[in-house]
């Protein structure tokens, strides 16, 4: 959940003409790449992942190189060792996973070990898995942001709030994460082309369109799914919280998500409330602060925190990005009734362009149904708690 602009910015914006323009002639001065460790271990069933990459040395490309064939394992204070293996080097290079049955235990202390093929060794600080409190009665409220015009999808939405009871122990840190599953019926959309069932991609005939691109007179073809399928959306905005001012109190009305008003059907939302470590909180809060205080009059210095809880054993000056994140999870599933309290507002329903492709005549070998491929963003497995 992204916070709004800081107050000062809005204040001044309201008073004087400040403006934000893209900088078209930006030239990167220096290029560097660093080992990035993105690892998470929770008390949920695995597989848990450790992703090792080299950051991109260019700000204009997402070229992030995986670190292949490393030895990755986890140890805990009870003497247990869990190996993480690069199980799928072709589709998920640099992603190391634990066994599916492995799960962390609240109160145990974990250390992550990494050895790369060039002999470099890395180790994390010991991190103890904190507990996560239960989510008490999530609530939601319809909300209209009048600064957006009618028809803008950002205008109306449902703010989702949680309540929780903080324990009497000071120094507890929370994070929220959400996942939404949207049932879909169209599994492929090919603008100006057709679906190649052998390669499982859209193909567009080359050369006939503008600049050798797709021809513009060919309609967009949509292909139905061959079974149940869901698109997955999840929160990418950092939403962390510390009990600094609420120790032992009930924390109420903490906004954790905003569901879009893009239809009137009930909206499925999986909420995760995580108990995170102080280092994970500090790190993520630092990033969130910097994002929030960028492009304002009161920016905080733009800086990157290296070696949050990872260090190199072979080169003490090596800078490492990312974090070894150890947390416990409490989940809750809610359905948002999108007919409730909406007043005069109408949903902004995304329009599907083009036509549905169907075989004519409807006999094999002609295919018109596209499979629902499993990925981070799509699944055919019925989500937990799904009500038809």
């Amino acid at each position: 959940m992204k916070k709004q602009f800081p107050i000062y910015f809005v204040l001044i914006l309201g008073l004087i003409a400040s403006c934000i323009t893209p900088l078209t002639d930006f030239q990167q001065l220096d290029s560097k790449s660093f080992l990035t460790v993105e690892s998470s271990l929770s008390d949920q069933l695995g597989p848990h992942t450790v992703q090792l990459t080299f950051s991109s040395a260019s700000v204009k490309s997402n070229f992030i190189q995986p670190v292949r064939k490393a030895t990755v394992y986890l140890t805990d204070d009870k003497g247990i060792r869990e190996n993480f293996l690069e199980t799928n080097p072709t589709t998920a290079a640099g992603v190391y996973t634990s066994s599916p049955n492995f799960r962390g235990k609240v109160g145990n202390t974990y250390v992550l070990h990494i050895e790369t093929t060039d002999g470099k060794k890395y180790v994390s600080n010991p991190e103890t898995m904190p507990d996560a409190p239960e989510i008490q009665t999530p609530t939601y409220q319809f909300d209209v942001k009048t600064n957006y015009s009618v028809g803008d999808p950002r205008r109306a939405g449902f703010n989702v709030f949680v309540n929780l009871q903080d324990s009497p122990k000071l120094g507890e840190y929370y994070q929220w994460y959400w996942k939404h599953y949207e049932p879909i019926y169209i599994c492929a959309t090919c603008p100006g082309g057709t679906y190649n069932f052998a390669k499982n991609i859209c193909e567009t005939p080359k050369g006939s369109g503008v600049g050798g691109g797709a021809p513009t007179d060919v309609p967009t073809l949509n292909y139905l799914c061959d079974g149940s399928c869901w698109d997955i959306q999840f929160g990418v905005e950092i939403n962390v919280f510390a009990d600094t001012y609420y120790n032992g109190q009930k924390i109420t009305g903490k906004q954790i998500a905003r569901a879009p008003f893009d239809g009137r059907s009930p909206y499925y939302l999986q909420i995760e409330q995580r108990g995170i470590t102080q280092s994970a909180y500090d790190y993520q809060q630092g990033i969130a602060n910097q994002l929030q205080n960028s492009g304002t009059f009161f920016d905080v210095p733009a800086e990157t925190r290296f070696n949050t809880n990872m260090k190199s054993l072979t080169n003490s000056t090596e800078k490492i990005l990312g974090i070894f994140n150890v947390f416990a999870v409490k989940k809750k599933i809610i359905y948002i009734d999108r007919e409730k309290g909406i007043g005069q507002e109408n949903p902004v329903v995304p329009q599907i362009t083009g036509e549905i492709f169907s075989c004519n005549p409807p006999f094999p070998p002609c295919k018109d149904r596209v499979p629902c491929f499993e990925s981070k963003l799509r699944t055919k497995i019925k989500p937990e708690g799904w009500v038809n």
Partner: protein
Amino acid sequence: MLINPNSMSKKIFLLLVFCITTFFTFAQNITLPKLSGIVTDANTGQPLVGAAISLDFKKSGVITNASGYYEAFLPVGEIIIKVSNVGYKPFRTKVVIRGDYKLDIQLEDVSKTLEEVIVSSEATKKNIQTPSLGVTSLSIKGIKKLPAMMGEVDIIRSLQTLPGVSSVGEGSNGINVRGGAIDQNLIFVDETPIFNPTHLFGLFSVFASDAIRELELYKGGVPSRFGGRTASILDIKMAEPNLEKFKLQGGIGPVSNRLMTEVPIIKEKLAVLVAGRLSYNDFLFKWFGPANLQNTRANFTDLAVKVFYRPDKNNSISLTSYLSNDFYQVDSLFSLENVVAKQTKFDYGHQNFAVHWGHYFSPKVYMDVVGVQSTYNTRTYAPDSVNRIDLKNSIGYKNLKATIDYQPTESHHTNFGISLVRYDIAPGTLNQGIISRVSPIDLAKEQSLEIAAFADDEFKVSKKFTIQYGLRFVQFYNLGPFTTTKYQEGLPLSTAPVIGTETFESGKVVKSYGGFEPRITMKFSTSETSTLKFGYNRMQQFVQLLSNNTTPLPTSRWKISDEYVKPQVSDFVSLGFFKTLKESIWEVSAETYYRKTQNIVEYLSGAKLQLNPTIETQLLQGEGKAYGMELMLTKRRGEFSGWLSYTYSRALQQINGATAAEKISNGDWFPTNYDKPHNVNMMLNIQPTKHHSFSFTFAYQTGRPYSSPVGLFRLADKTYPVYESRNNDRIRDYHRLDFSWTINNPSMKAQRWEGSWTFTVYNLYGRKNPYSVYFKSDKAGLKAYELGVFAAPFVSLTYNFKFL
């Protein structure tokens, strides 16, 4: 025979003019009316020979003869007459010729007219005659002539037109003097300190300009009577109320209204001055703001009161009070981390009071005793029902100072005294006595005492050489009650385990620092009109403003030096050359300086400063250096006046702690946010008549630094920039032209009520000046954005009045 070409050409010109006028005389004297008169010097009454009278802007005209007399024959009708003479201010008028017309004109000697520029002539005198170096006396009249943003006469902005004074950018919360941070300036209004010099988060200065008599900015060469900050002193003096006459003046502008009155209560003995300013911006939000800003409130006020009492010739007593306040209310936004709130209100301001007693023991010995009490309070609160918050912090200042000014002989002028300063800081209290889910917090108060003794002597060694030498000794005590946290040694404070605490009773010394601060300036006159000067001073600073933002928030916390936060110490040297030309109408100056500051404060990456009981764990200390050269050309008087300056300056810092976490930018020197090497400032004032004046100001600055990323990384499906060094790139250069047109007394009649209109255009050519550059993730990596401010011309109209 030698012929002087100048006198030759003048003679030819005179002959020509004579021929023309004679021709006109012969041809037209019978039918045309005669315009004639005598041109004299306004001060001496002496006739002016050779003054040129031009008619209807034509180049040809007549000139005055040896007795200052001129005549011309003109057709009936309206005519514009301009009379000019070298060294005198031109005179223009419009007359309607119906018959013979007599017009005697008095011209003002430029060297005797009042200065029109912000840097007062007093300053020029000082530049040439005294050893003071890096000291600028500013005239409030000059400041009022500068084009003001939204019509608000603004001291902080005006100062930025001077060489060596800059800021992070528009809307910054203070000034940077010769590479110093905002909190390294000591700002005094009648000896009471100002902790936050701006209203509306940096848009306007706090000072009610009508109440101000004069300002002195010490960019270096600080006399020993001032101390406690390392970069500069801005000494603002409030006007003394007139003991004879009632006066009322004020103004109506788009942002605020002003009113000032001087009332004599007992003639020649007791008078009071009250000046106030009140903003009224709420309607802007209510009527013009988008729906989400309609509940926004933003108001500020200033009130200055001075009571002046002179019981006899040898004594004077004055009471000064200066109050400022800002109030804001903003919907659904909040700046206190980890608190859930819907609406936030901000309230902050100064309550400053001072008592002065001045006493002449003899014409040679003068004593000044001053007592000051000053507080700056801030409050941030959210009236949300269950998550109610009320966050307060404050800084209090008390000062007792006695100074004696003694001139034993012609060649010595001494100034010495003692000063006691007490600071009381409440770094943060949350929800004291309030029922809320948000827990109460009360951070330990901090208090300190600074005891100082100081002496200066200005010694005229010879006609050419003068030296001003002084010494200040300060002893600083951080006083209990206080509890110091003890950390395991050899580790950075941010990660070191706490091994215990040490508690100090009330009044007990927690930590003490101190030392001598030598101050020296010397002047060597290279001629009657030029001098060469050298200066050195050391300054110590025991309080600092903690803020990790580009410019500090008004609610930022102050911190007293303690065991972990060492006091800042700066050593400053400068060299200057000054020369006046043409009876001080023109002045050229060149100054260079170098300053080194120890123990400047910086912050850990992602530092948590608000309500942090162990703030020392978030701070880093290092070294700062600043150097530069300032060149300035000033034309002080005449129809055209103004200045042009060029400054080259750098301001760098180094934070190089033992571990990687205690380094910034890998421990290398990096530019500060206000490091802008090239600066050009121009100010031009044109005053053709008493009723009109036009002003232009132009500013050019190298773009300020920002941190440019070396690449990007992905975490939890989001892309973030990777920054490795601080402030390694620069935003686009800044430049801006402002214009103002003032019409004084439009009725042109002499009357008690005198009005004037000022029309201002700020950023005349609508330059989209950047304030910062930042990065946001996008499908193809990161995208750079520029935040611009005042990207369009701002037009405003202000009405000012005087009632005498």
